[in-house]
């Protein structure tokens, strides 16, 4: 099942395209990280999926073929925008009341229990809560809707390290407890490695990398060796990013499945595993390098009908 699936999706604001010709399949039942440089179209894609904006071109379906923005899709998606928009002058209790009357599905006991657990007083005005508490309140409201898909746009950007940890712990607990799917965009690459099952790198509205995090990490290596032999390595393995350093070269290569081969193939070269951060940075530096998504996913994307 794909929680977000788009074909040739585009969104234009006045004269400029925020997203153009975007074809992507976001798998469900997982925690999917969406990364990419500023202006890559992450926020636009997520807002379109949440039904907050209408596509200019192309097709977009959510939660296994439901048209984005349709009532049956809206009921099952919860979206927390970048700045956790809340009414700052309302006490937390009234903020819950507002959210409750705006949503068809609402789990009030659960929302109150979460806030009690977090030590957020119901009578305090939202604007007087800390940044971390405001983010937790926005998350509480999102989870009280009992969504199948939780979409988080840059949830960590405004938070201090402790609040970030507590926020992600709460999201992960919801994944463990309710089995919800999560799609989150973030620039905090180091923290994504611990939470994401699946990674999508978006560059200029196009999918540059898509795949299971474990498989991506296992399928790439950082090779260091004599610069003169760089081309021979490149003939053997696709080079994502090459960093010449005098007589030496550092190459991030895609080795495919059995990653251990890379070093043994080339004596004199040192291979070491890459972290998610390194991998993403290498791809962001080389917008031309594209890793094809795994076959199964590409096929699922091509076969299933999408209603726009």
């Amino acid at each position, binding site marked *: 099942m794909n929680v977000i699936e788009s074909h040739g999706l585009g969104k234009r604001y006045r004269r400029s395209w925020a997203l153009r010709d975007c074809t992507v399949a976001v798998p469900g039942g997982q925690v999917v990280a969406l990364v990419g440089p500023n202006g890559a179209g992450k926020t636009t894609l997520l807002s379109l999926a949440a039904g907050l904006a209408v596509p200019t071109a192309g097709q977009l379906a959510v939660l296994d073929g439901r048209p984005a923005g349709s009532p049956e899709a809206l009921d099952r998606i919860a979206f927390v925008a970048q700045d956790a928009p809340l009414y700052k002058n309302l006490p937390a209790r009234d903020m819950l009341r507002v959210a409750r009357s705006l949503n068809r599905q609402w789990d009030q006991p659960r929302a109150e229990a979460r806030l009690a657990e977090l030590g957020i007083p119901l009578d305090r005005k939202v604007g007087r809560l800390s940044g971390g508490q405001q983010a937790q309140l926005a998350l509480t409201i999102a989870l009280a809707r009992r969504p199948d898909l939780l979409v988080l746009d840059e949830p960590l950007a405004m938070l201090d390290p402790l609040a970030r940890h507590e926020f992600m*712990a709460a999201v992960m607990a919801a994944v463990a407890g309710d089995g919800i799917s999560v799609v989150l965009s973030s620039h905090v690459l180091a923290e994504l490695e611990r939470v994401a099952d699946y990674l999508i790198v978006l560059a200029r509205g196009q999918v540059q990398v898509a795949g299971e995090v474990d498989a991506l990490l296992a399928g790439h290596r950082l090779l260091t060796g004599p610069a003169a032999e760089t081309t021979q390595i490149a003939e053997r393995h696709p080079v994502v990013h090459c960093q010449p*350093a005098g007589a030496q070269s550092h190459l991030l290569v895609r080795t495919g499945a059995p990653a251990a081969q890379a070093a043994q193939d080339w004596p004199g070269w040192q291979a070491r595993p890459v*972290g998610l951060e390194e991998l993403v940075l290498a791809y962001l530096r080389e917008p031309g390098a594209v890793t094809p998504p795994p076959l199964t996913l590409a096929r699922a994307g091509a076969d299933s009908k999408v209603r726009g």
Partner: protein
Amino acid sequence: MTIDKQTDGAGRDGSTAGRRSPIGFRLDPASGVPVYLQLVQQVEQAMRLGYLKAGDQLPTVKDTVAALAINPNTVLKAYRELEHRGLAGGRPGQGTFVQGSLGQPALPQQAELRRGLLSWLRAAEAAGLDEAGAGALFGSVLRDFYGRPGQAAPDDRGRAGQQDVA
């Protein structure tokens, strides 16, 4: 890597009501060891040190996820690995429990292996390798031998190109 022995010893009597594990997990973000493997190693370490015995419950997925802010699948992967190694087993609806033990019996060959390693170290020194060089070489061969490319040497990640690798 540290193991926390929780102060309240609930659950040691084997009652399923007290759903507490004798240990709690910690993460070392700088180690470069994949998170699931850190969990596996901490369970093994706790078994070696006697904090965990057969029948003890491992921390629940939900507790671990809430404490460490990691993906639940990572915890499940660690527990699958422990099951694969014959050290733990899942009980439907209850959780994952320790099986067996990890006491390493004193190998009769251990002294001999040690001598072999010493003579290798002397050869390495004679060839001009210092302590760090010998350690790096041994670690590299160790990783190759056990075929676990996922494990990087400590402090090895996130520094692409900043260091000249000898």
